[in-house]
């Protein structure tokens, strides 16, 4: 599509994100909440919706919702009411889902994203509420029948509904990335979109630039990665503009994304929508959230990525690039913080993390929490370099790799491998004289005026000293002796 046509339109996107909570048990029963168990194994009579069974609230879900609410600066409602959403589906054993309708636990608040040009944009939140997941209908395993796995039924969810504040598919991409980062930092959801523990529906519409009314909204479902959310929205934007440009009208509908073809396909129209007949859940009395309860949760809140980013860039002097990459992953950020418990050399710590450590992780395909060296060891490495005992290249190339197969400290390794940098002037002088002895021609040329040969002598010096010469000191001494 030509940019001139596309630019006539403004895109409006709102996202509904479902995050499965990482509680040990389900939302309203003692069944284990676990992904990957044998089908229909985590199911008691409550999950099965057997006659006479009743839901019992898992209080942990409220704590998780409060955490997210605090992280998004949302208003947390003091009284929690629950509602039933009624509809028939084979993977919904009770025939209704317990959710929150008119009284979500959180309202308002926002999530700040970094857009492509590096500026920050605040995406408003409409609400966050608690509900339970349905089971899983599996259509593609058995040729004749749909199979139902109820392990997931009753899994606690947080539904995070944004305001229609996003204006491009990339903003949606960044928003979702930020949401995922946040739930992972808060330890309330593993954020795994492929396994469905984080799911996203997108409401997409377009309108001519300058028009204040919203265009016709289309809901897009069935995206199993953040990239696919972006792709689906991008396709949907173009599709909608094309329909409008051809003089057509859009209908309010739900469309599914086909990741293989990269297109959206109509699922159902608005007219066919269910009447869910929400009403207050009579089996769960309202639950009161006290100020003390919120304060307790607040005190246990971990540092959040955006706050860390600001501290790293403003106080520690890291580049935005490094700060972003460290805070992007909670494990790395935590490791970084742990190194900083032993050293104040913020930049070196960041360099180690973004350099050698990240390479190691990539090479072995492991996450930060599986990295074998303790943060203290990295701090000790940093100290060795700071004290001038080894050069940073020796630390990186010789000591770091040796640490994985020993219990020794970096200093012990350096000593054992005889890598301690020689800063003793007499020894250094000996090395330099040795270099002069081996390269008499170059000495003559230098003294004849070819001052650029300094580099050559430094290289030779390192060779002779086996890298142990402290470069700073050596440089001065070298010049002194050459110019003498």
């Amino acid at each position: 599509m030509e940019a001139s046509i596309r630019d006539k339109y403004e895109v409006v996107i709102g996202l509904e994100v479902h995050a499965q909570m990482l509680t040990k048990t389900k939302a309203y029963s003692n069944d284990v909440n676990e992904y990957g168990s044998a089908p229909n194994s985590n199911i008691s009579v409550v999950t099965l919706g057997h006659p006479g069974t009743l839901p019992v609230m898992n209080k942990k879900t409220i704590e998780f919702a409060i955490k997210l609410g605090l992280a998004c600066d949302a208003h947390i409602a003091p009284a929690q009411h629950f509602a039933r959403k009624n509809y028939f589906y084979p993977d919904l054993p009770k025939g209704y889902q317990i959710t929150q309708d008119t009284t979500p636990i959180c309202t308002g608040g926002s999530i700040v994203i970094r857009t492509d040009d590096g500026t920050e944009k605040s995406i408003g939140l409409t609400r966050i509420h608690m509900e339970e997941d349905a089971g899983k209908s599996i259509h593609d395993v058995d040729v004749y029948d749909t199979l139902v796995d109820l392990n997931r039924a009753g899994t606690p969810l947080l539904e995070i509904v944004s305001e229609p504040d996003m204006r491009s598919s990339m903003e949606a991409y960044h928003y979702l990335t930020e949401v995922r980062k946040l739930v992972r930092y808060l330890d309330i959801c593993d954020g795994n979109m492929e396994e469905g523990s984080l799911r996203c529906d997108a409401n997409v519409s377009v309108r001519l630039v300058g028009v204040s009314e919203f265009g016709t909204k289309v809901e897009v479902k069935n995206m199993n990665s953040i990239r696919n959310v972006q792709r689906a929205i991008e396709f949907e934007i173009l599709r909608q503009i094309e329909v409008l440009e051809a003089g057509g009208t859009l209908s309010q509908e739900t469309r599914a994304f086909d990741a293989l073809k990269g297109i959206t396909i109509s699922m159902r129209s608005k007219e066919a929508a269910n009447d869910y007949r929400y009403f207050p859940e009579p089996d769960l009395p309202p639950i009161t959230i006290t100020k003390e309860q919120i304060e307790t949760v607040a005190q246990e809140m971990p540092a959040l990525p955006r706050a860390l980013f600001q501290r790293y860039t403003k106080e520690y002097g890291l580049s935005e690039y490094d700060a972003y990459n460290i805070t992007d992953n909670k494990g790395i950020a935590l490791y970084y913080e742990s190194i900083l418990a032993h050293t104040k050399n913020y930049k070196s710590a960041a360099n180690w993390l973004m350099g050698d450590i990240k390479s190691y992780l990539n090479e072995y395909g492991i996450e930060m929490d599986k990295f074998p060296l303790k943060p203290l060891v990295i701090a000790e490495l940093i100290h060795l370099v700071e004290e001038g005992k080894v050069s940073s290249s020796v630390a990186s190339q010789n000591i770091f790799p040796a640490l994985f197969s020993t219990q020794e400290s970096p200093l012990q390794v350096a000593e054992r491998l005889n890598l301690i940098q020689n800063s003793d002037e007499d020894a250094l002088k000996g090395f330099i004289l040795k270099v002069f002895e081996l390269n008499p021609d170059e000495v003559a040329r230098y003294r004849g005026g070819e001052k650029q040969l300094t580099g050559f002598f430094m290289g030779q010096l390192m060779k002779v000293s086996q890298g142990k010469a402290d470069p700073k000191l050596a440089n001065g001494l070298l010049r002194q002796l050459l110019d003498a």
Partner: protein
Amino acid sequence: MYRTIGDVQKAVLSGETVLSIAQAYLQRIEDHKHLNAFLEVFTESVLENAKKVDEKVKNGTAGKLAGVVIGIKDNICYKDHRVSASSKILEGFTSLYTATVLQRLIDQDAIVIGRLNCDEFAMGSSNETSAFGSVENNWKANHVPGGSSGGSAVAASANLCTITLGSDTGGSVRQPASWTGTYGLKPTYGRMSRNGLIAYASSFDQIGSFTNSAADAQLIYELSAGEDEMDATTSSKEVSNDKNAFPEKLKIGLISECVHHEGLDPEVRKNLSELIQKLIDAGHEVTEVSFPFMDYMVPTYYVLTTAEASSNLSRFDGVHYGYRSQDAKGVEQTYVKSRTEGFGTEVKRRIMTGTFVLSHGYYDAYYTQGQKVRRVLKNRTDDFFKNLDLLLLPTTPGTAFEKNAVKDPIQMYLQDIFTVHANLTGNPAISIPFKVHSNGLPYGIQLMADCFQEDLLFHGVKKLEELL
């Protein structure tokens, strides 16, 4: 024949084995098959359990209900036994667990003898909506026992069990108790765990008991009531037992709109007036109070209970358990045909009504309005108990009617006119045997107390019975 828990305990003390007591009950049940009170007798487990209790009696470790035989309404779950809510839709269904209330009685060595007929999903006032035929009133042939716990009422009245359990959503224990000359207790909402009670209307349902004495009602209540972690709506309030702390002279309120109700049978009215006079003569303080909401109670009850029922009964869909239509193809047909064939007319009527009142565009006019009325009723009732100990009112307008005599659903709903009050407001209430009508059928009288004041209620029963 044993009438009360006391009778059974005496027999056990005098050396009668629990097995022989159970066998005597089994024989009585066999001899009264024509009443159609039982849907199933658990003969096998009864004999097995009786022997176990006998062992305990021998060892001196038996519980308070050793020898007591309990019948349960067919909407109370008992592990490894069938339960159907008197509906075809639960065909072949066996419960995997035991209701909390029942378990507490089993823990005292009560024996569960069988499941009792009732209106389908407890929806009815005459036991005529059961998918397994109506129950015969043991007092008079071809008469209904009341409902919905009709089987439970008759089984207690005809001494086919020592006590029976029922459920009371709008009068389903008290109304049939009235019509069978038994004691029918509905405790405060939140007193009895609903875990294992097949839900009809969750914010109204309470398990209640049928007994042949007030003392039995109290004992069963004390042994089975109280907080349950499996039911979030149970109250943590202590189930106390302070029998002596209540005044000798009671402050009793009469609701004018009830005692002067035009639908009240003249004979019932006359006997009620005489009783009131006796209460006054005995020194009790009797006052008439006004509760001008009679016309709103039954409609409010039906708006709210059908709304909850329409959702509660969604799980019976032919997919997971119970009845599935044979010729259904695909999910949609499985739902429609299984439910159409599996549910009876009255249940379908209430599901439809409830679905309607919750529908978009009608919700505020019906459901929201119903909730508001319920709140008003609750507040006014709470006010009464600021000045009164108890409310006295008829349980039923008259006595049991002949089978098939009431065909209009609205007429049938009005049978609950004096009982729905306690369910709408959550108060505890009991129906106790009052008189036998000149038509040969018994009828009861009802006492209602402030919420969680069951002890005062039992005290009131004692005082009232001194005058009967």
